[in-house]
């Protein structure tokens, strides 16, 4: 093993981590403010990837046009679910949200399977070539993923820290009924969080599509890691989910030097279990 390989995998780990963080942050926010376990979150990620692919197939000229289209589509589907079948489920016990969203996820997967078939799709890299970063020659697209992903993560963080909806999101997470008693339209806060989470998952899927390929089960494949990330970061903790995402991304990328992918997953799980023994609340304290 050379230092160059190590450096390369560290960078790759960051690109994985950014994508995991995009998915996990939505799960953790939905949990944090509405005790909502979203089992369909991986499928929103999957739809983001399909959205990009479909846009390109029907003739959208560039990936950079297809990406916002795909995200808008996922956002629309997420909000549609929120206002139809999920509307009565908000505020119910976690088991009920889990079942409802699992059912929805299954329907989405089967719908995609029936429409687009079981075979995985590929889309070309929107930017090719490599950039030289010090001693490292690195694929440009992966760098783009890291930069765009981090920018979005920071933007969402600023939204949560600074804006009115951000304060409402944190207030609802800390005390839902008191927030309502101060006149805050809590259902609208739910909508914002559900929309934000869906959009982040869609962006994650769209950005990941050229790297990992597209298939009906990619969401189910990634949800395990996303939940591990959420638990490591502390349920409901946005910053924790970002840190956890990058951590797991690095574990998997570095693990890939010596291990098979599934073994690297197990290392990620092992990391979580060790963490649970040492710090049951997660990596950072569950400060909402």
């Amino acid at each position, binding site marked *: 093993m050379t230092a160059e390989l190590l450096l390369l995998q560290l960078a790759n780990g960051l690109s994985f981590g950014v994508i995991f963080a995009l998915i996990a942050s939505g799960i953790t926010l939905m*949990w944090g403010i509405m*005790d909502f*376990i979203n*089992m369909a979150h991986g499928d929103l990620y999957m739809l983001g990837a399909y959205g990009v692919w479909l846009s390109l197939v029907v003739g959208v000229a560039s990936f950079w046009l297809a990406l916002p289209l795909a995200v808008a589509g996922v956002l629309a589907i997420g909000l549609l679910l929120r206002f139809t*079948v999920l509307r*009565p*489920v908000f505020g*119910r*016990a*976690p*088991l*009920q949200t*889990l*079942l*409802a969203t*699992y*059912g*929805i*996820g*299954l*329907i989405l*997967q*089967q*719908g995609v399977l*029936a429409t687009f078939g079981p075979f995985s799709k590929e889309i070309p890299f929107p930017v090719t070539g490599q950039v030289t970063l010090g001693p490292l020659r690195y694929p440009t697209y992966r760098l783009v993923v890291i930069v765009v992903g981090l920018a979005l993560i920071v933007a969402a963080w600023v939204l949560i820290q600074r804006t009115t909806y951000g304060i409402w999101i944190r207030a609802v997470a800390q005390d839902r009924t008191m927030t309502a008693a101060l006149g805050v339209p809590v259902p609208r806060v739910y909508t914002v969080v559900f929309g934000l989470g869906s959009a982040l998952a869609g962006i994650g899927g769209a950005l990941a599509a050229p790297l990992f390929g597209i298939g009906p089960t990619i969401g189910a*494949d990634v*949800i*395990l890691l996303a*939940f*591990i990330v*959420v*638990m490591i970061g502390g*349920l409901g903790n946005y910053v924790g989910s970002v840190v956890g995402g990058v951590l797991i991304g690095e574990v998997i990328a570095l693990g890939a030097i010596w291990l*098979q992918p*599934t073994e690297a*997953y*197990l290392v990620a*799980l092992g990391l*979580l*279990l060790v963490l*649970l*023994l040492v710090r*049951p609340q997660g990596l950072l304290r569950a400060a909402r």
Partner: protein
Amino acid sequence: MSAWRPGRRTVLLGGLALLAVLPWLGGPYTTLILTAALALGLFALSYDLVLGVTGLVSVSHATLFGVGAYGMAIGMTRLEAPFWPSVLLGIGAAAALAWVIGFFSVRTAGPGFIIMTVIFAHAVESIANVWTGLTGGENGIILAVSRVALLPGLDVRFTAGSRSAYYVVLACLALAYALCHWLVGSRLGLILKAIKGNEPRALALGHRVGVYKVVVNVIAGALAGVGGMLYGLSQGFVSVDLLRVLLSIEVVVWTILGGPGTLIGPVLAAILMSLGVDYLRSVTHQYLFAVGAVTLLVVLVAPDGVGGLIDRLLGRPAPAARS
């Protein structure tokens, strides 16, 4: 629920008699499917100890069902061990994994428990999918068992679709039901019900709630493992399908529909629903659509199960769905 209420014993004996007659009404294929349904009924029964009696939401119960089946299958084929040691290996594997899952999951408060079980369930499914050398993947492990020496001198014909296999599974289900019924009425059962009713109070009364949660998960896990083994034996093979998250979700749905904590309700729901899914699978490749739709509909329409739904349709107040 209704004015006419036959005693529990009458219902049970009647149901048992009905189940005993069923395999004579069709061919081996019918018997095969019915046997599978009974094994899944045993699986649902064990889960009712977790969700229904203790109020513990675990989404990794099929993991234990499947690992039990695999433990036995690997013992019998890969290790070429005799029947009973293989069975013990299966039960041991399911119970051990149940302990591991329980041990780590109770360390996280409330909802963390659910998510930990989701993580374990997915992790085991991923491993089983990839480690095909051990599990046989989608094709599974074929159990070339034609006779099982249940006891010295008692060999039972255990081929796919044989009535003797059906009756063995039925007997095991009845025994397991008796065991669970006794357990629920025992001191342990009272503590488990206290945990479901009011966990902080149970904690304040000095019960080691975390330990009991692990214990019930291990007992139910071992029982689920038995269900998995019976399923595998009666079908002649064990595959990754037995430990999928999908099956873990299905058993939650069955338990809710049948009435959590009633023991018999989840068993009936499991038998009927699994027969329904089997039928759908035989007529369409898209049966998972229906499974997804049913899972969603249960939450939307019948969060208090069939009993609650009937109560609501008849205009009686039902407890809010907050289990």
